[in-house]
């Protein structure tokens, strides 16, 4: 078994997804050689973007890899992995490589998969730590199959190492893809609309979560937002219910915001929400559950029924701002 750890690099539109570099940080935890694997059509530019960040680059190119497909990527990666036997293969726990590719790779390599890891190590085998039961516990899991290991890493859990400034060796391989065995036909990408004056530009955000309870209660949240001179935003469930528009959703599948003040009302603090707001300057959380994970990100925490606080808070703010 080699010390190589393969990090499958995520990219789109000719740009490497910078979070992919965090995978090299995970490789350090495994004391391995960080090998970036780039699959695509035109890969030279991508290889160049990362060659200063890792120990080696393998680029796998074919016109059939122009768009990501699980079958295409697996055809490119699996035979080479079986030949070279890297100790592990890592991807981000992303919507493409993490969710669609990693289970396919694990399955075709006959190995297990530990997904959404916040830490990895070797401890009598490959070990990954992951948050379970809505972040209330960490489960430490170990693969019980020898050979190549597959894991996905949570965005933000590992730090990308400092750039070495040295260009790593790039191995360019062109691969044969049997296009008849590629079952996805990829169509249009539809980019999120960029709206001027949207929540990403707000100074103060009042964000409502499922704890708000009803559409009627949202009016009180709206009133507070207005009083405080802020913008209303929401966690995903309120958008899913059709109470608010998609453009107001904060989180991994919505917007990333960084206001001076973020008020989280009845939001539990799921990772997909937190990644969109944790860099706010000051975070206030109101939640009736004292163990809600949102309190770990908050500067000020209030354990209470938000509907009881929101009235007095609105009054207080109105009195202040006149």
């Amino acid at each position: 078994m080699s010390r190589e750890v393969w990090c499958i690099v995520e990219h789109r539109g000719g740009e490497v997804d910078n979070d992919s570099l965090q995978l090299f940080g995970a490789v350090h935890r495994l004391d391995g050689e960080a090998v970036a694997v780039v699959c695509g059509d035109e890969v030279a530019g991508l290889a160049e973007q990362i060659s200063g960040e890792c120990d080696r680059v393998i680029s796998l190119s074919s016109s059939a890899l122009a768009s990501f497909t699980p079958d295409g990527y697996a055809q490119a990666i699996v035979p080479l992995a079986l030949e070279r036997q890297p100790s592990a293969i890592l991807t981000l726990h992303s919507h493409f490589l993490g969710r669609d590719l990693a289970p396919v790779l694990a399955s075709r390599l006959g190995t297990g998969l530990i997904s959404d890891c916040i830490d990895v190590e070797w401890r009598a085998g490959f070990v990954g730590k992951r948050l379970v039961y809505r972040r209330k516990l960490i489960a430490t899991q170990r693969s019980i199959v020898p050979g190549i290991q597959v894991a996905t890493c949570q965005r933000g859990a590992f730090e990308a190492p400092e750039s070495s400034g040295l260009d790593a060796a790039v191995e360019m391989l062109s691969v044969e893809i049997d296009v008849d065995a590629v079952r996805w036909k990829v169509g249009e990408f539809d980019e999120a609309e960029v709206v001027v004056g949207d929540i990403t530009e707000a100074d103060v955000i009042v964000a409502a979560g499922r704890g708000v309870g009803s559409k009627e209660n949202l009016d009180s949240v709206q009133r507070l937002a207005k009083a405080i001179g802020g913008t209303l935003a929401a966690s995903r469930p309120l958008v899913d219910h059709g109470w608010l528009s998609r453009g107001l959703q904060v989180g991994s599948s919505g917007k990333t915001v960084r206001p001076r003040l973020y008020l989280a009302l009845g939001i539990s603090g799921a990772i997909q929400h937190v990644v969109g707001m944790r860099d706010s300057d000051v975070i206030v959380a109101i939640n009736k559950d004292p163990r809600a994970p949102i309190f770990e990100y908050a500067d000020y925490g209030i354990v209470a029924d938000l509907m009881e606080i929101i009235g007095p808070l609105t009054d207080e703010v109105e009195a202040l701002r006149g």
Partner: protein
Amino acid sequence: MRIAVLMKAVVEPESRIGLGSDGEVQCANFRYELNEYDLYAVEEAIRMAELYDAEVTVVSAGPEEAVQSLRKGLAMGATDAIFVPVEESMGDAFLSAEVLADVLKPVQPDLILSGVESNDLGGSQVGVLVAEQLGYVAATMVISVKVGNDGVLNVRRELEGGNFVDVDLPMPAVLTIQTGLNEPRYPSLKGIMAAKRKDLVRLELSDLDIGDSQLVETIEYSYPPRRERAQMIEGSSEAIASELVSLLRAKDKVL
């Protein structure tokens, strides 16, 4: 056309989740509910069944409480259900996938739907692994599904940052469903009554052709390290409001 839906009974978010002195998760008081993501999958399957004249089989492998979830699926409009009791402690995605795939083999669904992940363990692997076991193609994070005239599935996948991509793929296929693509119905009284007469088949693990396929074991549970805790503000609602506002104004200068 036959559509199967994978349903999981997950630990209710309000359940008290803690570790015993033996370091094991204390699950005696766990209450279970249907995984939220799967609820959207069931609804989508029933809508597709209405549109394309299909039958819907709901399937669960898990704790005894999953029977309630399956009954809910039947009451919403599924045709029949299959349940395999599996102990929570065996929770390994490969094992779950192997059990589900073996159950589904004779059913031969054209389409299998599941939620994007489970609310409690959140591995987001089982759907794709079931596809691999059955030789189906899979797509995850689906927020819209249509069947074209040629029998090809046109799906829209959600990407990070609110972006989307459209993908066409042939059946048989597995799709994992993201919340928000429909509005799950509440079972009607009529639906609930009708569900009582529908088939709910119970299979035991010993009835299935599965190997010793566990690939990952959980060796330990622990509490996440507490980060710097928030400054907690307590008192009457009025006192809290006034203290918060003065802190935000005087200390943080954000008001």
